[in-house]
């Protein structure tokens, strides 16, 4: 029988909320969407902050940011280019981009001099691709990813890949 615990989020470093409107498309996964500009900005911390940070790095395309050319991977750009033919290719692209994102996050988490200390429940330990759905017929791609923090807590979410124009 586990003992209920509470976590204090006071005095934590916060970020602007980018991913919000968490809904439940299925019983075992959460979906996050990108904030609209007309929504009131909110601060975010804890694992939600970690998830949106991971998602942002995962979806960043290498060479896109002028002074951070090595940041990210080629997941989103390959999908948009139509260069993903099967699940194997998609899995490969995800693994490369995810590994880069985790490496970047871990590096910054360890740099307490520049950024201050990071609680373990905000430090990413791993990201696992739980499931992926590639449907050329309906032109949809869905990636379910389970994030695990250094504190041991996990969270599964659907990567917000927009198919809009």
């Amino acid at each position, binding site marked *: 029988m586990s003992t209920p615990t509470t976590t204090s989020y006071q005095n934590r470093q916060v970020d602007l909320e980018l991913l919000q409107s968490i809904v439940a498309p299925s019983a075992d996964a959460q979906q996050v969407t990108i904030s609209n500009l007309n929504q009131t900005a909110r601060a975010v911390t804890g694992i939600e902050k970690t998830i949106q940070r991971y998602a942002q790095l995962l979806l960043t395309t290498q060479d896109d940011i002028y002074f951070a050319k090595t940041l990210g991977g080629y997941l989103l750009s390959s999908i948009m280019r139509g260069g993903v033919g099967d699940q194997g290719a998609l899995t490969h692209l995800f693994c490369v981009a995810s590994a880069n994102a985790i490496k970047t996050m871990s590096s910054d988490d360890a740099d307490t001099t*520049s950024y201050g200390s990071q609680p373990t429940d905000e430090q990413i330990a791993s990201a696992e691709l739980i499931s992926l759905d590639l449907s050329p017929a309906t032109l949809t791609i869905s990636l379910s990813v389970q994030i695990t923090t250094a504190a041991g807590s996990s969270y599964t979410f659907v990567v917000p890949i927009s198919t809009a124009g």
Partner: protein
Amino acid sequence: MAQTLQGLSQSQYDASELLVIDQLRTSYPGLDLRLGTTLRELLVRPEASVSAQRSANVDELQATMSLSVMATNGTASAADVNAILSNFNMALAAGDLATGTVMIKVATSRIYNVGAGSIFATMAGLQYQVPAAIVVAPIPVAGQLPLFAAPDGTFYFLAPVVATVSGSVYNIQQGTALTPASQLFSYISSSAYVTFSGGTDSETVQSAINRIPAALSHRGLVNKTATEAQLRDVFTGSGVTIQAVSIQGYGDAAQIRDKHNVFGVAVGGRVDVYCRTFQDPMVYLLQKTGTRIADGTYQIAITAQEAPGFYAIRAITDVAGSALGSYQYTELRGTAGLANTFHDIDPNNAVVEAAYTVWQTSTITITGVPDNATQHIFKVEAYGTPGIQAIQAYMDDPAVRPVTSDYLVRCPLLCLVSCTAQVFYPIAKPVSITTLQVALAQYINSRSFVSTLTRSELVAVMLANGVTKINLGLNGMTLDGRVRGADGTWYTLRGDTLDIGSITNGANLLAPATCCFAAEQSSINITGVAE
């Protein structure tokens, strides 16, 4: 020019980003600014980009506000330098074209026509052109150049050429092979007849800084700075490039004409102006017909107009020869035309007081010539300062000259430097000995009227050109200099420092303010050792 984002380096951006993060964290420690956060991407990154651009613009502005900073950095564009120099009514001086004479050997005796613009080029690609069309004939008439017979049965003629581009690199050594770009009938070979001279690089920022006092000065023949300012103003763009001016006036060590009175005390109004109008040593080339005065002994006379104000003989050889050596000679300087000038020159000391001026003449006796013909043609090379006649004529102009003054223009006394050195360099990064020779010669020739030249200065030049070690031991690097006093005495300097001050002799016009150090590439001998 304002910086764009693309013009920024990664390190400039990174430094700016760190600064923005530090500043934000100082005021708002509760913000997470790690890579991937929204704050980092939407707030820090744009601000860091703008801040980096702003910093770069400020850096660039600071780097182009000061001439001394631009001289040290060496990265400012000529436009940036000129923007500041314009405040002083100045601009960087452009380089000058080297000039020289090409000896062209041909197999046939006949008339040759060489068109204007005909190109001759060295193996290294340096190009020279014939400035005006020339006609060469075995028996020349007016306006034609002579075709000479060489001892080996061939024929040759001498064509004046000028470099197509300015720069001291065009001052090629005597004997350097040149190839014509167009065909010439019965052509055999061509080469530099004398060491080319007059080619100078564009002015350095430091040199421009040194000129500012003269540029700001009142122009007029009233004091040292104003006189230099006046000369630079008048002769800029005239074909006479004034590199440096030094003046010996009332009370100065090498001013001897101001004591022409019964008391022997100095009075004002007598001014000797030493004009350096060359960078690398400039050589007058003369073909002189010697008259036999004894077996193997000939005599030639150099008039005041042939080599005006020349400093010293460089070499005397046969007319078709190369001055790797020289005939032995003795020289007797004289004067001509003093009776027709107002200048205060003591007839009893005329040789010294008119030395290196346009009134100087010379009679040279050449010995050891393997010939007993009545006449023998010699090639005479003499160091001089081009434009001295024009400068003297300008200063003698009644409309220019203060009526109570007596300005005499002289060629600077050249301390002719020779240097030997054993240098070491990495076997993986070999050093060009020629490059070292050129760099050393350029350094020595780029200085104006200074008192000393030291081994350490030359060591610094060599180290800056890829040398890792220099042998400064007993038989390692040597430095020698020779200066000719006005009475014909040669003074020798040797050692760690060539100090003109140590041989100052006002009666012989020898003083730091009258001497320039000068070196030819051929007088710098370097042995390179790869290790």
